[in-house]
């Protein structure tokens, strides 16, 4: 039996070209498999219908950088690295530091893919999310109609903000073509302080004090003991490491680090501060989970996100490490503790037991659990009522596919 030849991906170079491809697929009752940097399997397609792969990698232009207005319009297929490079010429940037995925570094991921999966990193705490960054968008519905939403001004309440509907929708309600974003002046310096905590309670106490201190951190992270063993700075590990980072002028960063280190809880902890190069390297490392950078272990692995309350981050990390110790395997845990987001991976022969216990822990903490990667099949989540209603209007023929799993908020 001969295998059917693989269909070459189409590579549109403009929003209109992408719209035409989707319109054609719609008219032929086929489906569009839209990929950016191909870092994530985003969608599920009907196997009985033809599938046309479409790459957005030629949709890679900065269309307009209004330097004085601090806004930029770019194609959705541009990589974050290319976009940041262009903005840097004018000493501007986008304060986003998404995780690396599927061997793709954060800079290789596309703007559209980041928005479609709502992928942000530690800077989300101090610099804001896509709601703040995105001013407008051109997106394409399931019939191939190119639709403009929002605008190019920093405030705008004209009509429905359908561009926000595209954040986290995995491209299943519309394909992103162009995005208008707010830009920011590049910070002069980055510094962070690491605190080595012997209990979750002390980590939580420290973070609670940072929250009420007269400082403005750009990120507050917790790293579990096992994960920190592989830190790129080869620093010693402890039960739990709290990282508090700042982006500002060098003197302001230094002053704020001094303030944090002078907090009552901090004074009792061993700590170390890192200046620009090391701080940036550490922050980048904190976004790169092992499942995406290392070969899959033979007995399988799982990657997950827990959305919990900030105050529960430390105790949940402690509980998850205890669970992994009981069941066996290697666990890696990093929390955007300021926002209560825990990202983790675990490789263990007892994955099904780990998953069951993980679900129990999430339920006990009223936390949302998202499985982002698994070496064994998981049931696809059922779209909720709101999603089904919107899908029926924006892509009733299901040209753009359905979410395979909760691959959002990465």
């Amino acid at each position, binding site marked *: 039996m001969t295998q059917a030849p693989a269909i070459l991906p189409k590579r549109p170079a403009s929003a209109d070209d992408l719209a035409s491809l989707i319109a054609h697929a719609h008219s032929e009752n086929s489906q569009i498999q839209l990929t950016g940097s191909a870092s994530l399997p985003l969608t599920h397609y009907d196997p009985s219908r033809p599938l046309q792969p479409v790459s957005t990698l030629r949709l890679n232009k900065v269309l307009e950088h209004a330097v004085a207005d601090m806004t930029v319009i770019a194609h959705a297929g541009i990589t974050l690295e290319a976009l940041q490079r262009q903005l840097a010429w004018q000493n501007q940037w986008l304060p986003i530091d998404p995780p690396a995925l599927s061997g793709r570094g954060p800079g290789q991921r596309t703007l559209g893919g980041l928005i479609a999966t709502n992928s942000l990193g530690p800077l989300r705490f101090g610099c804001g999310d896509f709601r703040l960054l995105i001013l407008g968008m051109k997106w394409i519905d399931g019939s191939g109609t190119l*639709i403009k*939403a929002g605008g190019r001004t920093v*405030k705008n309440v*004209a009509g429905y903000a359908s561009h*926000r*509907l595209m954040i986290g929708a995995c491209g299943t309600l519309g394909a992103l073509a162009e995005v208008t974003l707010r830009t920011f002046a590049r910070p002069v310096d980055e510094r962070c302080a690491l605190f080595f905590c012997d209990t979750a309670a002390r980590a939580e106490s420290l973070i609670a004090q940072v929250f009420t201190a007269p*400082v403005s951190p750009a990120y507050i992270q917790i790293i579990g003991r096992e994960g920190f063993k592989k830190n790129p700075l080869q620093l010693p590990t402890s039960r739990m490491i709290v990282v508090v980072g700042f982006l*500002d002028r060098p003197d302001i960063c230094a002053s*704020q680090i001094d303030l944090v280190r002078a907090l009552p809880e901090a004074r009792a902890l061993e700590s170390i501060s890192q200046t620009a190069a090391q701080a940036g390297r550490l922050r980048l490392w904190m976004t790169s989970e092992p499942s995406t950078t290392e070969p899959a272990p033979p007995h399988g692995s799982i990657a997950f996100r827990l959305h919990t309350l900030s105050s529960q981050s430390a105790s949940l990390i402690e509980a998850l490490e205890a669970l992994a110790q009981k069941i066996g395997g290697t666990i890696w845990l990093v929390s955007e503790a300021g926002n209560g987001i825990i990202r983790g991976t675990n490789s263990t022969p007892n994955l099904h037991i780990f998953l069951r216990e993980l679900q129990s822990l999430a339920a006990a903490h009223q936390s949302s659990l998202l499985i982002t990667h698994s070496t064994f099949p998981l049931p696809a989540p059922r779209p909720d009522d709101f999603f089904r*209603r919107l899908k029926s209007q924006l892509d009733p023929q299901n040209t753009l596919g359905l979410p395979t799993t909760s691959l959002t908020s990465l």
Partner: protein
Amino acid sequence: MTLAPPLPSTTHAAALDALRSLLGPANIISHPDDLLPYECDGFTIPRAAPLAVIFPTSTRQVSETLKILTAHRIPILPRGSATGLCGGIVPVSGGVQVSTVRMNTIHTLDLRNRFALVDAGVCNLALSDAVASSPYHFAPDPSSQRASTIGGNVATNAGGLHTLKYGVTVNHILGLEVVLGDGSIHILGGPRGHTSGPDLAGLLCGSEGTLAIVTRVWCRLTPRPRAFRTALAIYDSTQNACQTVADIIAAGIVPAALEMMDGSMVRIVEDAFHVGFPASAQAVLVIEVDGQNLGLDEDLAHIESLARKNNVVTFQGGSDPLRRAELWSARRRAFGAIGRISPSYCTQDACVPRSKLPAVIAHIASICSKYQLRITNAFHAGDGNVHPVLMYHENDPAEVQRALDASGEILRYCISIGGSVTGEHGVGIEKLPYMRHMFAPQDLQAMHRIRHALVPVDIMNPYKVLPRDNLDINLLHPQHNIPQ
């Protein structure tokens, strides 16, 4: 889309009886005399009385209310404290206003996790007051914050004086509890924010009650700034003031607030509040930087150098909290002071790219001159959000019409240079015709489809936000040509 046909009065009576039975007579107003104050919001040109105004006190009552109204095909008009400025609550096709003002409980204040869960009818300022002893506040600060409800802030995605640095309402909302027209109750997001799937709470923000009624809100609490510097920059030319704003933004500085008043507004404010503005000033900027104490003086010095480059006459900066409070109080009350010189006025709300402010302000002045209207300006210059105030005599229909025509010309011009028809007030019925200038037919059609997905029967605040084919609402007679 199914349009609600005219209903016999017996149907109205049956619906009102059902609502009285559900809510109790104290929570419903239906006598025509009592309905007069409910004919309009802060945009007072279009007026029409609702069939009734009801005051549910719980999400369950909102749900049951909406089921009754939908069953009787009576339009549902969500209402907060009616401080809106675009006619968003005017019952152009009849209907019942559903007010959330008696749903005003703050359920949760979780300072450690920086959020509050509040009823939609909680007043904006009441939330900040409730956490006044903590390091936090609710950052959106519309000028109406003493009266406007948080549910209303969500419905209009309200802005304010300090949104330049801190963002608008949607940036401070973690989750919503909403009720659809069919009475179904939905939770979108929550204390943990947007965790998975499309950002539905983000979509609902700014939908002006045309998709659902917001009943409870998870609000993000934001650290109050610890230190600040406030500056008053006085100019003898609006162009120089506008150019300073453009230069500050282009320099990458993000002040907490960057407000401008033109010469006529300066005199109105000075006459009312005596804050020390010189009578000869043609424009003033009120500028605030905040954050860590260290660095603020340098930021202010940078701003002062940009102001001097643009020929500022006087630049007064400092950290005196009393002077700061005086300046912001005057700015917040500026619109109220206009009543001293004109009984009626309408405020426009276009938002433009900030580099184009100098040209925009000059062009607005020329439009108002052409229409022989008095105009004054107090606006969020740092956001590019202009608020030209067009003054008219309510009893002079020709002048009212000129004010409407001039407004239209201003909005079309702002759209033509890449701006938005509304930065923070919303579309309501006021700006419906200009949506066609800003969006192509397929863009508006997509919005209609989104609405149809959530509102299959055209019952939630109909005729607002989205223009309809072959229908222009006459603002002087808003119910004309519309089925009642």
